[in-house]
């Protein structure tokens, strides 16, 4: 992105390191119930792993994994998951975002249904935060184009 000289050592180390960072981000999202963490932090860590891929490799390498259109779709998918869980609670006879009513379709009791609802919310928040961080980074680092189609 910045220069055309990419170091072999940096590329190899980052290629080995990025899967571990992503697994850690997923752990932080999933284990937000019993330890510090949650959707915001895990989403930022997942986004940082993709930003590291951009910085160490080319930006085209990143677009093979996660294209611009996919980033935009993931942005809205998180908000849709969040509000969709709220509307599901409305559908099963509760108030908006009242997760206790979800125990009619989940194989848990009423308290467990609230725990599962919290987990779904965290996943939605994490997806949105990850996609927005990657999107802002891609926009800030894009070159100025006077003419010609942007990809």
């Amino acid at each position: 992105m910045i220069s055309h000289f990419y170091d072999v050592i940096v590329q190899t180390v980052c290629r080995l390191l990025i899967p571990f960072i992503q697994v850690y981000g997923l752990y932080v999202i999933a284990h937000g119930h019993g330890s510090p963490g949650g959707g915001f932090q895990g989403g930022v860590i997942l986004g940082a792993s993709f930003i590291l891929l951009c910085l160490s490799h080319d930006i085209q390498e990143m677009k093979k994994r996660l294209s611009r259109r996919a980033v935009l779709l993931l942005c809205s998918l998180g908000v849709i998951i969040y509000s969709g869980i709220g509307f599901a609670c409305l559908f099963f006879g509760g108030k908006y975002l009242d997760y206790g009513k979800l125990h009619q379709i989940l194989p848990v009791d009423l308290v467990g249904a609230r725990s599962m609802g919290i987990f779904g919310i965290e996943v939605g928040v994490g997806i949105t935060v990850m996609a927005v961080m990657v999107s802002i980074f891609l926009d800030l680092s894009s070159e100025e184009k006077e003419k010609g189609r942007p990809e």
Partner: protein
Amino acid sequence: MKWTALIAVCLTGGLLIYGTADMPDWGDPASPASLHVSPRYIEKTVEETAVPNMVTSVLADYRGYDTLGETTVIFTAGIACILLIRRFGK
């Protein structure tokens, strides 16, 4: 220019420091902030939601509307960046 800025900043800071005389002490267990709703959150969170981390349960369950609004704000910020920088058409 610099002197007017410095005078305005010092005036604001002096007023705020004068205002701290009425504040409760740091770490006071009987301060007004920790008497009203937070005891209910602390005592009921495990038996109502089965989540040991109180911050997560308050964030996603008791104050779910707040977090929905924040998520929408973040989404709007991403869309605003795209609209500002990316060039469409042509």
